[in-house]
C-alpha cells in the first residue's frame, strides 16, 4: 500500500517544484565572450616564479611516457596530413579530456592549415594558440582598499589546500596575508585552514560551523584593514553548480568581499585535473555567478592531463594561472603553456 501514499506525496512534491519554478527568477547570465581589458594597475609578481618543469610529477611523467607523442612524431616526416595521423591526434586529445567539440575544432584547424612542419608541431602550435590568454596575477588593490583573492569550486578539488599553499607563497614574498575561513559547511574545513595559517604565519579569521560565510569574509576584511595587511585569501564551501541557490549564495559572498574596504582582484576557480567534461559547465556557472578571473588546476601530478582547460580557455576565455604538481607548498607553480602542452601530448 505504501506505494500509493508515495504517489500522493510525490504529487505534493511536484506541486512544490511547479511553485518554485514559477517563482524562480531566471536571470541566467550568458557569459560575455569579450572580457573587460585588464586594468592598468597590474603589478608583476615580486617573487621569482619557479618553472613548471620543477614539478617532480611532470618531470617523471615527461620522461616515462613518450609513446604516443613518439608515434605522432614518427609519422610527421611524410609531409601531408593523412587520416591516420589525424586519428592519432584525435585519440591523444580525447584521452587528455580536451573534449569532443574542442578536439573536432582543433582537427578542423589542422586540416585547414595543413602541417608543413609535421603534424606534431602543427597540433602543438594549435594548442599553444588556444592557450594565449593573459595570465598576469593581480595582487594589489586600488589605493586604500584591501586586495582579495576569492576561491571557488566544487567539492574536493583542493580549494583549502590551494589557499594554504598560496598563503605560503605570498608570505614568502613578504606580503602580510589574512585567511578568511569561509567554508563553514564542511566539517573541520576551518581547522584545516587554521593549520595552514599556523604553518605560514598568516592571520586567520574563522567562525563556527554553519556560520554565515559572508560575515567571515567581512570580518577578515576588517581585520586586514586594521592591521594593514596586503591580501585576503577567502575560502568558500565546495558547491555543485546545478543549484541556483548555492550559486546565488556565492554571488553574495563575492559582493561582500568586493565592498569597501575589500576589492576582489582575483577570483580563482579551483579545478581538479582528473575532472572530465563537467569542468566546462563548472567554469561556465562559476563565471556567471562569481566572475572567475583565473583557474588553479590541481592534482596535475597524477596520470590525469587536465586537457579540459584548453576547452575552457578557448570557449570562455578563462586562463589557467596556477597548477598544482605535488603535495608540497612549492609544488603550486605558475602555469606554463609550453610545458603543459608537451605534457598533454605525451599521453
Amino acid at each position, binding site marked *: *500500500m*505504501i*506505494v*500509493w*501514499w*508515495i*504517489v*500522493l*506525496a510525490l*504529487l*505534493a512534491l511536484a506541486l*512544490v*517544484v*511547479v*511553485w518554485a*519554478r*514559477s*517563482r*524562480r*527568477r531566471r536571470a541566467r547570465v550568458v557569459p560575455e565572450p569579450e572580457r573587460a581589458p585588464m586594468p592598468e594597475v597590474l603589478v608583476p609578481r615580486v617573487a621569482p616564479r619557479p618553472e613548471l618543469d620543477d614539478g617532480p610529477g611532470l618531470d*617523471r611523467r615527461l620522461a616515462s611516457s613518450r609513446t604516443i607523442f613518439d608515434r605522432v612524431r614518427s609519422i610527421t616526416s611524410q609531409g601531408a596530413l593523412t587520416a591516420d595521423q589525424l586519428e592519432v591526434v584525435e585519440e591523444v586529445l580525447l*584521452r587528455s*579530456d580536451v*573534449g*569532443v567539440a574542442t578536439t573536432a575544432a582543433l582537427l578542423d584547424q589542422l586540416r585547414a592549415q595543413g602541417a608543413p612542419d609535421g603534424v606534431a608541431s602543427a597540433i602543438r602550435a594549435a594548442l599553444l594558440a588556444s592557450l594565449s590568454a593573459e595570465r598576469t596575477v593581480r595582487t594589489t588593490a586600488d589605493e586604500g582598499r584591501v586586495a582579495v583573492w576569492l576561491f571557488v569550486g*566544487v*567539492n*574536493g*578539488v*583542493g580549494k583549502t589546500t590551494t589557499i*594554504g599553499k598560496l598563503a605560503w607563497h605570498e608570505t614568502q614574498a613578504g606580503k602580510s596575508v589574512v585567511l578568511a575561513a569561509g567554508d*563553514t559547511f564542511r*566539517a*573541520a*574545513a576551518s*581547522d*584545516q585552514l587554521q593549520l595552514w595559517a599556523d604553518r605560514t604565519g598568516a592571520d586567520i579569521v574563522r567562525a563556527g560551523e*554553519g*556560520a*554565515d*560565510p559572508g560575515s567571515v569574509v567581512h570580518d577578515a576584511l576588517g581585520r586586514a584593514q586594521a592591521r594593514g595587511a596586503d591580501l585576503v585569501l577567502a575560502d568558500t564551501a565546495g558547491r555543485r*553548480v546545478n*543549484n*541556483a*541557490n548555492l550559486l546565488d549564495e556565492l554571488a553574495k*559572498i563575492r559582493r*561582500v568581499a568586493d565592498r569597501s574596504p575589500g576589492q576582489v582582484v582575483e577570483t580563482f576557480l579551483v579545478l581538479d*585535473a*582528473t*575532472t*572530465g*567534461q563537467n*569542468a566546462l*559547465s563548472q567554469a561556465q556557472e562559476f563565471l556567471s555567478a562569481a566572475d572567475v578571473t583565473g583557474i588553479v588546476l590541481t*592534482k596535475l*601530478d*597524477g*596520470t*590525469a*592531463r587536465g586537457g579540459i582547460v584548453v576547452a575552457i580557455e578557448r570557449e570562455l576565455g578563462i586562463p589557467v594561472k596556477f597548477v598544482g604538481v605535488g603535495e608540497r607548498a612549492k609544488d603550486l607553480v605558475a602555469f606554463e603553456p609550453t610545458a603543459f602542452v608537451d605534457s598533454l601530448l605525451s599521453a
Partner: protein
Amino acid sequence: MFDSLSGRLERLSTSLRSRARLSDADLEDALAEVRGALLEADVELSVVRAFLDAVRERVRGENVAQSLTPGQHVIKAVHDQLIDVLGGSTLKVTYSSKPPTVVLLAGLQGAGKTTTAAKLAAWFKQQGRQPYLVGTDLQRPAAVEQLRVLGHQVGVEVYSEATDPVTVARAGVAEATRLGRDVVIIDTAGRLAIDEALMAEVRAISATTSPHYTFLVIDAVTGQDAVHTARAFHDSLALSGIIVTKLDYDARGGAVLSARGVVGRPVVFASTGEKLGDFDLFHPDRMASRILGMGDILSLIEQAERTMDADAMADSAQRMMSGAFTLDDFMAQLNQIRKMGSLGGLMRLMPGMTKDMRDAAKNVDDGELNKIEAIIHSMTRRERREPQIIDGSRRARIARGSGSSVTAVNQLLKQFEMMKKTMKQMSTGGMPQLPGGMGRMAQMASRAAAQRGDAMPPGFEALASGMRSAAPAAGAGGGARGKKKKGGRVTPPKNR
C-alpha cells in the same frame, strides 16, 4: 545526469524512425552519434570502442523483430548493451563469521573518502550493525577532525592516534574487536595511483588488517583518467568494488562505465548528495534506466519506506481521496518528504520528468520548503482548513507575516487548489490533468507496485490507465514571478 546521453539517443531515434532499411552507412552514422554521446559523458575511449563493437555485433547478429523499425533496433541494441556494461545485480554485502568485518576505503585526494566513510557507517548502522570508524589520514590537515565531526553526527565512534597510518589501522581494528563492534571502516589518505611510496603504505594497511572489502572511492565527474586510477588501485589492492560519489552533479557519470568496464568489479554504493542520508547501494539496472531517462521509482519507494511514517501518510492519503485535503495535511506530507532526503535528489529519481521540470528541480532546495512552510504557518487555523476564505486583506497579512509577497501566497493557493482538484478527480475515477512527467511517474509506480504485489486503492487504476492521455500541463500557474528581494541577509548554508 546523463542528460546528454539520453538526449542524443532520443534525437537519434527521431532521425532513424523513418528509415525502412538500415544500410551499413546509416548504422555507422548512428554509432558515431553514440560515440560522441559516450565521450561527452566522459566514458573512456577504449571502453567506448568496446561498447560500439558490441553494439555493432548485436545489430548485425540479431534478427530484426518485426515490430521494430531499424532505428528502434539500433536503440534497443544500445540499451541492452548499456545494461550489460553496467553489470547485472547489486553486490550483496555479507558479514564475516568472525567479526569485525573490515572495510577499507581508498582513492584519490578529494574523491570524498572521509564523507563516504561516515555515510557508509550510517548505512551499516541502519542495517542493524555496530560500525566503528578508523581514521588513518594523518596527512591532510584536520582530516581526522573532519571524520570525528561526521562520526559524531551519525553516532559512530572514531579511532585515531598520531602515530603512522599502518599502526593506527592495526590498533583501530584491535580496538573495535575489544569493543565488540562488528564492522570496521578504515578511512585512508588520498593518494595518487602513481605515488609508489603511498601505494606501498596502503598495501601495508591492507596487509595488516586483511580487509573483507576494499572499495575504491571515485568521483563521478572524473574524466578519462578514471580507468588509470581504477586499474592502478585494483592492481595494488585487489578491489572488491567501487563507490561512486557526487552522482548528484550534472555528471554524466561516464566514470561509472569506465571504471566498471576496466576493473570488472561492481559499483557497490553511490553517494547522491551532501546529506549523510544521500547514500545507498548502487543498482546497475536502475542506473541504466536513469541513463535512458526512465527515472528510478524503485529507489524512491525504498527510500520512502525507510523514512516515512506510514500511518501519517495513510491518514492524509485518505483525506486526499475524499476531497477533504487541507493545507495542514499538505504540510504534514511535506514534512514526510523532507525526511526522505534532499528534494533535488528525489526529483532526479522520478521517472518521466520533462526537461523543464528537471531544471526546476535542480533549484528546489529545502529553502523553498521553508518559504512554503512560512506561508502556511502565517495562516490561521481556519484559513488552513478553508483556504477559500482567504481574501485580499488576508493575503496581504499572510504575505507580511511570512516575509513573502502576495504573489507567492497567491501561487501557493492556486497550486494547492489544482492539486486538490486532481486528487478528487482521481478518486472519482476521472482522468486528472497532471503536469507532464507526473503521469508517467504514476504509471511506473503502478507497474512497480504490481511487481511487488501491492494492492491498488480505488481510483488509482484510473490514474494508471488514464495517464497516457494526460496533457502536459506542467506550465500551469507559471506566469507570475516572485520579486527578488534586494539587500537581504546572506543566507547561511545550513539548509542544503
